[in-house]
């Protein structure tokens, strides 16, 4: 059941062959089985069950709130959820229970979705592996797959991916096999024998990949949803900046963050997007135009699509597997009737430098509020206000965060304006 898409489950909920309570219970069980992967920081199973019951009442009365009424969702732990711990994977916010919920959380809740919990992430979204959290790293579910184990034993068969009409299917070990593996070793026998989930929204990716949730929200600034999506074999979609409200998303880079969606099908992505997208008066950077919902047609035609592949993206060090995947996708589009051409983005090499500078600057600024006065961790040392600040921030942040704050402050003293100009230049290339 859990490998069905949300859309398919929704159909079954409406025709009565499944109930939301069933679905949620099964997701809870999947989550328990996969707990060694450490996808969740906080579980909200009790409230999930009661919300599932409410959804069942609505659906049986013929009044579902939306297509996704009764469907489990999960949120990365940097989305504020009222009354539920929101830690950003950091000691600094380990005791932070927000007094409000993010707009995306409110919108999804308002349409009947059921929150399963808060997922693990790199501390304050700084990282691309989901390994830098005070709650430990999140592990890629594929580290437990038969195929991976076979490869590790030397049997090298390239991974095969099949895509048909917007749905990815992959051969997972049969459920019994997987269960056996999990029960045999409750904890990983070899602590090093696991793959990263990608990040910084790794927990959400794992939650969707393991069936603990159907849809999960993450935040993508420099690939933090697309990256773990690809590592965990699920869809990850980053909307254009300004489409989805950031009110309630604890920011990394205010000018680049985008609340993004994980799902196991593109239809689910579209359904979730419809609920969360659109102008929010509490976020002045959201576009004002009315959001126009769409549905993907079953017989999608790409005949009028022109796809450009930048030559510069064939970067040195790219693995053969990646190159093959690119070629394969290019052929796919070509065969389907799209026009595929080579393009050039000559300033690509500067993009990462630009991003690093801008990111560090915004981080230094956004992290200035963590001083232990109004909320969050507060150090015991308090000989003076400044001593309190210094100790609190040293204790509350890990090396990565502190490193970026230092770099950011340095850049703000000197180079911010240059970086923004380059950033704009890069954008115009697109």
């Amino acid at each position, binding site marked *: 059941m859990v490998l069905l898409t949300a859309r398919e489950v929704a159909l079954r909920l409406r025709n009565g062959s499944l109930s939301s309570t069933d679905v949620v219970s099964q997701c809870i069980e999947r989550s328990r089985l996969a707990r060694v992967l450490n996808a969740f920081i906080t579980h909200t199973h009790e409230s999930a069950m009661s919300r599932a019951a409410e959804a069942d009442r609505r659906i049986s009365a013929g009044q579902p709130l939306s297509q996704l009424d009764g469907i489990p969702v999960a949120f990365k732990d940097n*989305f504020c959820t009222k009354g539920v711990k929101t830690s950003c994977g950091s000691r600094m916010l380990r005791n932070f229970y*927000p007094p*409000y919920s993010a707009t995306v959380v409110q919108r999804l809740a308002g349409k009947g979705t059921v929150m399963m919990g808060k997922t693990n992430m790199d501390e304050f979204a700084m990282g691309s592996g989901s390994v830098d959290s005070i709650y430990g790293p999140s592990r890629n579910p594929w580290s437990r797959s038969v195929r991976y184990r076979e490869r590790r034993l030397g049997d090298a068969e390239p991974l095969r991916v099949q895509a048909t009409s917007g749905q990815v299917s992959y051969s997972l070990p049969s459920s019994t096999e997987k269960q056996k593996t999990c029960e045999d070793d409750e904890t990983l026998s070899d602590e090093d024998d696991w793959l990263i989930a990608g990040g910084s929204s790794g927990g959400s990716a794992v939650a969707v990949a393991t069936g603990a949730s159907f849809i999960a929200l993450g935040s993508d600034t420099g690939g933090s949803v697309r990256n773990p999506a690809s590592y965990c074999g699920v869809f990850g979609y980053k909307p254009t900046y300004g489409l989805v409200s950031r*009110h309630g*998303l604890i920011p990394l880079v205010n000018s680049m963050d985008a609340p993004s969606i994980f799902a196991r099908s593109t239809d689910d992505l579209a359904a979730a997007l419809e609920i969360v997208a659109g102008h929010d*008066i*509490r976020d002045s950077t959201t576009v004002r135009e009315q959001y126009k919902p769409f549905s993907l047609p079953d017989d999608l035609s790409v005949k009028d699509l022109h796809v450009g592949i930048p030559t510069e993206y064939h970067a040195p060090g790219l693995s053969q597997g990646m190159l093959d995947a690119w070629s394969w996708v290019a052929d796919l589009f070509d065969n389907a009737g799209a026009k595929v051409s080579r393009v050039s983005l000559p300033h690509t090499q500067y993009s990462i430098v630009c991003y690093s500078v801008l990111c560090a600057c915004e981080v230094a600024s956004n992290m200035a*509020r963590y001083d232990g006065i109004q909320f969050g961790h507060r150090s015991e040392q308090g000989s003076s206000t400044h001593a309190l600040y210094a100790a609190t921030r040293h204790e509350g942040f890990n090396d990565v965060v502190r490193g970026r704050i230092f770099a950011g402050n340095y850049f703000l003293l000197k180079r911010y304006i240059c970086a923004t100009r380059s950033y704009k230049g890069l954008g115009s290339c697109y």
Partner: protein
Amino acid sequence: MATPIATKTFRSLKHNFLKINNLLYTRIPFCKKKHQIIETAKQADQWQAVIGLEIHAQINSASKLFSGSGTSFSSVVNNQVALFDAAIPGTLPVLNKKCVEAGVLTGLALNCSINKVSKFDRKHYFYADLPAGYQITQQRQPIAHNGRINFTVFNPASPKHTIPRDMSVGIIQLQLEQDSGKSLHDEDNQHTLVDLNRAGIALMEIVTAPDMSDSEEAAALVKELQLVLQAIDTCNCKMEEGSLRVDANVSIHRPGEPLGVRTEVKNLNSIRFVAKAINYEIAEHKRILESGGVIVNETKSFDFKTGKTVSMRDKEMKQDYRFMPEPNLPPLRVYDNSDFPTTKKSSQAINIDTLRAALPVLPAEKRHHLVHQQGLSVAHALMLVADDDLMQYYNSVLAASPHLTPKLVMSVLATDLLACLYKAKLAISDCYLLPRLFAEVCSLLQAEAITTTTTTKLIQLMFNGETLPPADIIENYEWHKITDRAEIQRHCEEAVERNPKAVRKYREGKPRYFTKLVYHVQTKSNGCTDPLVVTEILKKLISEVS
């Protein structure tokens, strides 16, 4: 006594010819008292002060600049704090339209150019009353710039400013920014208590050009700014409540030399303190430089108990605010009639021209009208425009009796009525003498039915509760003006007769004895004689008698 001073002056002549320039043309008196005058004159010649002000005016909007919480003054501690004001993670700023309108209106009232596009920045520093660790302000591109404020410098209590003088000071820019919270330092318990009610309230920071050269000019500018802001109702300007605060930048230099290092005195919250602090600071600069010291660019606060300025910040650490554009706020756009968008809902966009048309009559214009159309003196015009209630009373009097000369009305108002109010410790708004009754008194004076002395007595009686109409009071007390010259003549003759000593002294060339004679006549006639006529007759008598 003479020799030391002469030597001193001579030595100075040798060493610094220029300094003594002015003194060469005045008599150099050889007496003890005037010695000090020479010294101060010498010093005064040397230094020129340069003063610029940064004024923070709280916008009187119902909610804060970027959040919806309230802005009332004495609210319970930490009860007007939105999540954004406390910098709760994930919250974002949402710009308050009323605040932008206030900024534009104020910019227009100060003759500024309004920037159609302005931007917000973050100014970073760590302090307990700044929850986010940065203040949102408009450093790069503020809402208005390049304005001017015109005012009159006049303070009868200050020797250098007894004659009204017009002055014009440039406004460099006007920017919108957040106010910080309040911290109260409890030294005894080693605590700092933080109240965030004020955090996030909208401020207009008005930066003047350093065009002023003494404290009275600065005080006059602040007073005029108060009147302007109150007239357009963008700030209630209650300095005692902190809704208007002044920072003064002061430096001194010798004419012809480059500008001196400046110091900044922050958070002056009364006009009196502005003048005092600037005076003290100028004197401090002089003292330091003349004793061979160097001025350090530092921030100071004014201790009103001691009347001195004290250094505020750590001298070693120079603050770098690491300015950064505020990424959560798109550029602020305002429009005028030429480009007002038709697609946008009118409730969203701001039209500069609409606001300009809605500007009320400003103080300078009111004063101009009073002086040029109604014939009042500059001093009286200043007095009226500075006090709304007084202006209202004055206008009511004129409305009650339109035939009255404004100058006459103002004269009686300023001399007699205000004296009564001052004595009774009342404000004009508490005055129980109704404008129309006051107008009746003025009419009697204008018709020359009574003298100015009688007017004073009449006003006092009526102020203190006399309910009879003025005409009846005059009847009862027999206060009609004496117009019969013969009668006046009789009084004058009596005065001359009864005061031979005064007459003699007057003839010897001591004018103040004449007053005694006039006084005699006035007393005997119960103040009902015209002093000019009395003077004329007395003088004639005295010249005849000899």
